[in-house]
């Protein structure tokens, strides 16, 4: 996995996951969000439009991130899940835990409101 992190004009911290989010690399994502939270970021979008697949460790990392973000009074949205990736969230009921947007642009709009 590689990811790119950028801050949008409206103050949303956008992380794009490229490749897989699995047991071997999930800690990098958790660390990136933890650092951004420490630096005062409060609006997060994690985008999966360039992601191949996610395993249960990756889902678990997202659950941990979501919890941490909420505890800090921050907001998180996930975006860009294709039909296959979305099925993983539906099977695990995590589609009810996360705010999901079709695109990063929609997620940013939702976070900016």
């Amino acid at each position: 996995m590689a990811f790119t992190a950028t801050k949008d004009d409206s103050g949303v911290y956008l992380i794009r996951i490229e490749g897989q989010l699995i047991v071997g690399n999930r800690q990098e994502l958790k660390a990136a969000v933890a650092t951004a939270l420490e630096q005062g970021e409060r609006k997060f979008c994690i985008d999966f439009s360039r992601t191949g697949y996610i395993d249960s460790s990756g889902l678990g990392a997202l659950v941990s991130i979501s919890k941490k973000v909420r505890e800090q009074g921050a907001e998180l949205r996930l975006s860009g899940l294709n039909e296959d990736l979305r099925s993983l969230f539906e099977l695990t009921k995590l589609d009810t835990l996360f705010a999901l947007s079709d695109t990063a642009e929609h997620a940013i709009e939702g976070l900016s409101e």
Partner: protein
Amino acid sequence: MTAPLPAALQLCVRRRPGPLGASVQVSLRVPSDVGCIEEVVDLLLRHCTHRAWLCRRMRFNLRVALAEALANAIVAGNREDRSKSVLVEADLSGDQVRVEITDEGIGFDPAGITAPLLPDELDRPNGRGLYLIQQLVDDVTFNDRGNSICLTLRRP
């Protein structure tokens, strides 16, 4: 003192022509290194999914189930002990793909694991792996010791 280099993957592929297309047997010895999972999944998919009935969703499901089972074998089974390895044996023949993944751990009782699916459990970061595998492939079985899992995906 420098850390030992991870052992290389050991791959053996056998192909035999057949009436429904070539059957393929793949045997792979994988070091207990989570960094290998992506490569192993790619290798298996490359050799074991050349059947027209394996649609995009089935390939995706197999990919995730394999990554999941390998992670369980390396992390929970072998506890990432680099002196241990994971044996992967895949068989694509007729109308099914069957993959057996065996670690060198003490095994576990799959009946003792429940996935966090209820609303007040969703914040739990762990426990979804086996459940996901069971949802993504047609059949999941274990040996008696619980250190070997067999995944089967069948033609719909």
